[in-house]
C-alpha cells in the first residue's frame, strides 16, 4: 500500500468515525442522566443488530485510523524505518482490532 493510499485510508476512516464519535458521546451523556448500571447498558445492547453494526464499524475505523497515525509517529519520533515500522504498526493495528472486536462481541452478542 502506497503512502498516498494510507493517507486516503486515514482520511476516509476519520470521515466514518466523525458521526460515530458524536453519537457515542451523545448517547453516553443522555444515558447516564439519573444513574446507570451495567445491567441497564447490557439490556439495551445485547442482541441489538444496530449497536453491533455501530460499534463493529467504529472499531474497524479506529483500528485503521490509529494504526496509520501511529505508523507515522513510529517513523518520525521513534526512528523506525521500512519493514520494522510496518510490522510494529500491523501488530498494534491487529491488537486494537482484536480488543475492540472482543468488546463489541461481549456487549452485543
Amino acid at each position, binding site marked *: 500500500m*502506497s*503512502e*498516498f493510499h*494510507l*493517507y*486516503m485510508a486515514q*482520511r476516509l476512516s476519520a470521515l466514518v468515525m466523525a458521526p460515530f464519535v458524536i453519537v457515542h458521546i451523545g448517547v453516553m451523556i443522555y444515558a447516564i442522566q439519573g444513574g446507570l448500571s451495567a445491567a441497564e447498558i447490557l439490556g439495551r445492547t445485547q442482541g441489538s443488530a444496530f449497536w453491533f453494526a455501530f460499534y463493529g464499524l467504529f472499531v474497524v475505523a479506529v483500528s485503521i485510523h490509529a494504526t496509520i497515525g501511529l505508523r*507515522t509517529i513510529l*517513523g*518520525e*519520533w521513534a526512528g523506525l524505518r521500512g519493514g520494522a515500522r510496518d510490522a510494529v504498526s500491523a501488530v498494534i493495528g491487529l491488537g486494537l482490532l482484536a480488543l475492540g472486536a472482543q468488546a463489541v462481541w461481549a456487549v452485543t452478542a
Partner: protein
Amino acid sequence: MPERDHLTVTVQRGGPGAPMRPQTFEVPAYDNQTVLDVVSWIQQNADPTLTYRFACRVGMCGSCAMMVNGVPRWTCRTHVSKVLDGNAIEVGPLRNLPVIKDLAADMDPFFDKWVSAEGMHHPTRTRDDAIEPIDPVTMERQEANAGIECINCSVCYSACDTVAGNPDYLGPAALQRAWTLYNDAKDANKDAILDAVSGKGGCHSCHSMGSCTTYCPNELDPLSAILGLKRATAKRFFGGRK
C-alpha cells in the same frame, strides 16, 4: 536602543570529522548592519578560515541562509538590530542539511528533492510551434504566480519539523515548485507531478505545521501549495480531473 560598541557573536564551527563547536567573536557594532555583514567582518578581520556562503547580498540568490539565534533567515536581509538578543547573536549552519564546513550547509539533498518532486518542465509544444498565449487572470495562473518567486534559499526546508523527523520528506520548496508546475498551462504532464508527490516522503507526509510559510523570507506560502497538492491528488483518486 542603548549605544553599543561591540556585538558578541557566537559562530558554530566544524564539519564532517570535526564536531561542531561554538566560537565567540567581538564584532564592532554599526547603526546599519546585517547578519551577513557581521559574518563577513569576522572572516575578513578576525579569522580568515571561517567558511560561509553568499553571492548577491540583496535577497535574490538564496545563498546566504543560516540559523540566526536558532531561526533560519536570509542573513543579507536580516538587520542585526532585529535579531539581537541582549547584545549577542548566535549564527549556525542551516538545520536539516549536512554541514560542509562552519556556516556552509550542503544543499545537495535540498536540490535533489526538487528533481524527485518532478520539479521540471514538461513542454506542451516544441520550439517550432508558436508561443502559447497565457491568460494571466485564470485561477491556475494566479496559483502558479503565488509560488514562482522562490529563491531556493532552503529557509523553509530548515524550518520544517517534518523534514527533521522524516529524512525522505521532499520538503516545502520542492512541493511548492511541483504545485506551480501543476498549475502551469504550459506543463504537459500533470499526472507525473501528482505521481511524484504521492510517493514516499511526498506531500501527504506534511503535518500542516506551517513553519515554511512562517519563515519564508519572500513571504511565500508553501503550506497552501502543499494543501493544494493534497487536494489535487485526492480529487484524482476519486476520478476528478482538474
